[in-house]
């Protein structure tokens, strides 16, 4: 019943993109320019025009997706965006005639490739991580898990109140020195080496046998609770990590697209200005 963006409409946009690439390659092979292959030939201008129009159209997705309630399917647009975007690799490369240099023209090409490669990671992320994310959460929502962690903290504080200072200090550490999120590297690693709860758990383990007999049962209960909290924290951190992986490529894709548009306009302008 569900039709994902990669398989949308029996992959009609993939077929369209393949046809476009094949036609372009065939034309490139059979077309013999007077001088050599470059953007200035008849074929070069044609491919350049197609490529530029494609880029403007692909960029339009950003506007399109915000036109809520219009009569279209966004997943169809995304499907077309993905496959036609990938076809730019062939179209734009053949447009260059493999002439590269340290100039604005190659800059536009390089920016475009960065956009496409980041988009490629996006496809990978979108097809791989959603499922892992569901498996990781095991049917609970993020809010459920955070609420559970809150409950555990509250319970730990209650249990720890009558316990010796060294034990209750660890509970305070677990409650107050646990962070979720943080720096980009920490988010993307999905781990926190200085996690208050994990440290408290490790330090609490030997204490179970060291504390006064009357406290050992409560301390053991704390150990179980904090252990459970650590497990939940791992789930949350993994969740945040996966969400970040699904979002981060856009931080490259979008700004680079803006840069590409500017470079592309300069490229077009300079080509015609210095004709």
């Amino acid at each position: 019943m569900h039709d994902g963006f990669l398989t949308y409409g029996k992959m009609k946009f993939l077929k369209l993109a393949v046809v476009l690439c094949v036609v372009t390659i065939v034309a490139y092979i059979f077309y013999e320019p007077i001088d050599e292959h470059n953007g200035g030939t008849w074929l070069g201008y044609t491919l350049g025009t197609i490529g530029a129009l494609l880029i403007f159209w692909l960029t339009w997705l950003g506007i399109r997706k915000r036109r809520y309630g219009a009569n279209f399917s966004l997943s169809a647009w995304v499907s077309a965006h993905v496959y036609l975007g990938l076809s730019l690799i062939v179209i734009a490369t053949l447009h260059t005639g493999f002439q590269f240099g340290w100039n604005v023209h190659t800059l536009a090409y390089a920016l475009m490739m960065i956009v496409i490669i980041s988009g490629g990671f996006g496809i990978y992320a979108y097809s791989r991580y959603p499922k892992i994310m569901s498996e990781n959460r095991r049917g609970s929502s993020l809010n459920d898990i955070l609420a559970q962690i809150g409950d555990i903290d509250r319970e730990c504080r209650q249990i720890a109140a009558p316990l010796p200072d060294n034990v209750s200090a660890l509970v305070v550490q677990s409650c107050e020195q646990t962070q979720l999120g943080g720096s980009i590297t920490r988010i993307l690693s999905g781990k926190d080496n200085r996690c208050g709860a994990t440290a408290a758990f490790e330090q609490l383990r030997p204490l179970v046998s060291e504390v006064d007999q009357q406290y050992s049962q409560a301390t053991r209960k704390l150990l179980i609770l904090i252990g459970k909290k650590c497990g939940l924290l791992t789930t949350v951190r993994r969740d945040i990590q996966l969400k970040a992986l699904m979002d981060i490529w856009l931080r490259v894709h979008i700004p680079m697209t803006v840069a590409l548009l500017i470079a592309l306009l300069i490229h077009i302008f300079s080509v015609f200005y210095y004709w």
Partner: protein
Amino acid sequence: MADQYEVAIVGSGPSGLSAGARAAEKGMKHILLETTDHASDTIYKFQKKKFVMATPDIMPLRSDVSFEVGVREDILETWDKEIEEQSINISYKSEVTAITGEKGNFTLTLKGGRTINANHVVLSIGMQGNIRKLDVDGDDWEGVQYQLDDPEEYEDEQIVVVGAGDAAIENAVALAAQNKVAIVNRKGEFARVKSGNLTLITESIESGLLECYFNANTARVSPGEIVLKVPEGETAVPCNRIIARLGAMAPRGFVESCGIKFTSDDRSALPELSEKYESSVPGLYVVGALAGYPLIKLAMNQGYEVVETISGNDIAPADEPLLEEKFASLEGRAVNEVLQTIQENVPLLSHMSALQFREFMIDSTIHRVKADDVIFLRNDYTNSVYSIVEGSVSALINPDDPSERVTLKKGSFFGEMGLIAGRRRTATIMANGDSILVETPRRAMLRLINSVPGAKKVLDTAAIYRQIQTHLAPNIEKELLKDIVDTAQVESLSAGDALIKQGDDADHVFLIRSGSFTVSSLIGGRDVVLSYIPSGNYIGEMALLNEAPRSATVKATVASEVIRIDAAAFRELLANEPTLRREIEDKFQDRMVENMETEERPEAGDVIDFLVGQGVGEASDVLLIDESLCVRCDNCEKACAETHGGISRLNREAGPTYETLHVPTSCRHCEHPHCMSDCPADAIHRAPDGEVFIDDTCIGCGNCAGNCPYGVIQLAYPAKEKPGLLSWLLFGSGPGPGQDKNPGEKVAGARSMAAKCDMCKDIEGGASCVSACPTGAAIRVKPEEFLSITNLAKAG
């Protein structure tokens, strides 16, 4: 010698005020007596800024005093002004303690000993003047109150709410938001409250939001403490405040002391009244809430009418012009004549009293149709019922062959199947010639069925026959079905009830009339769901055909109704009708194949089991997200908010998940919408395509939100207007498209209104949540399509 008045009106509520104004306008010598120092004490005591309704909307106001929907303060201000302007002779602080005498010579004794003489008396004292008090030692403590103006006024207090009615529950739950609240219930459960409030209180107690003392009575009160008598003994509960909501009752002692008789000894009984509101004491009239009419507008009309009656003017009821207008298309026939004709011609409607029938007709519509006019089309999702007053119509029962028609004659009715099953129309109906039809909306029809047993019986009998004919044996003559219909019985089941148990003997076939069922079988010691069967299908024919014990268990997924058909009658029909036998055999084989497929793929059955457990069985259209495609961008929520006044009606993340199939919190457009069951403004409707939506007449009472078992309705303030796309894009003014999808901000002067999914019925592109999903993870499906094993197998 005391003054002699033509009419003395006791109580200055809506009805009394209206009576006073009429008397003043007519120049009658009158006096309006009010116990307190202000008019209309009941409304005066309403919660501050309470929005007062003017239902029934359609009924015209017939009074010299004006009244329209608005907040309490405005209404009271207008009335005070009008009392002044219209020279109504109102006497404040005049509590009547006794009424004696007879028509032409009544004596009203006031507190303090003053007496008033009047020819006629209108008693319009309502009920709220007689609030039940705690009536225990110490109840004069200033912390004891019997009303709650604004729950938000109190914070961080310990509050004990005494009472188990709707008002008590609503107060307790509202207060619990920022106070520690306990509720005291005299009984062991909350009976006789609105179902929404029952859910509300049960959940609040279970979640620990508030504490409840069951089987508890108030023993005594002292400042800062209430002592309760509980089954275990006495317990003292410290509190800053006690709010007692014990209801009000007719001040029966006083009313009876005036000589007025009541209809019975029941606590809720009303005074005996004539059609003109005259009590058992001639010349003494009772109007308003005490007469059983708690709606403000109706009460005001009565005040007007009663004074007209007293002055000897026999006026027609206020709804007369409405009915005249309704019957206008019938060219000059008098209202009474039309009403009589309809009741004579249509047996279904003949069981109502004259008053009931007038109200029924105000809600209904008269249609004059010509030959070949289409009344409704197959698959329309409308749910009104039509009665044929004159002429006849044809039902086109076969979509492939328009010539296959069943004629319905004068006196019969149609459209009831949509009402019963909550599903699409099963046939197209066309008029045969010039005919007159009465169309009655769902709500009025349900009221009829619930209040008039005779009508329910007529409807049920006809419906059974038609359902059998439509769903089981469409091409069979009526006579041949007689045995089956005669032995058929309607049976109701609650969600989870087993209709058929595996291994039982087979002695019946069932036709599902409303709701839906799952078929499951024990496979390897585990109950595996084999299929999902919605209403309009029959079930249990396999074992009958095989002459074997039941091969599977059949359970209701939601509250459902079936028609139980006797096996012998069914077998005989099959023996006489080889075509029918073949059809049933074909369907039987399809089901066998489907069951075998599931047995090989038990996980598909598990998905059905999961979805049915989420109540999808009663849905007509449900949003499902494939989490393996969902990138958690929340564009569905953003699209929803952007297309619905800035408030998202869907919560993507909330809701249960089975493997990667997620059921987000979003309206399922139930076949029998729970939200519709108790909407005082009648603001919830079903569009022809099946969308259940709330219109602008919503008063924000929250009943629908409380009644929805899926939590998909929220009360929200309208969101602020957003800047345009370009000014956001270029100049960074916010919030931008898709941002701030749940503002929840209280806007000054605005009222919160119920917001729910309307399936984007007015939006060209269809459901925005689906069209805005970038990866195709969100789909909206009809359960009968999705819950088929073959489709699930394809979905993988």
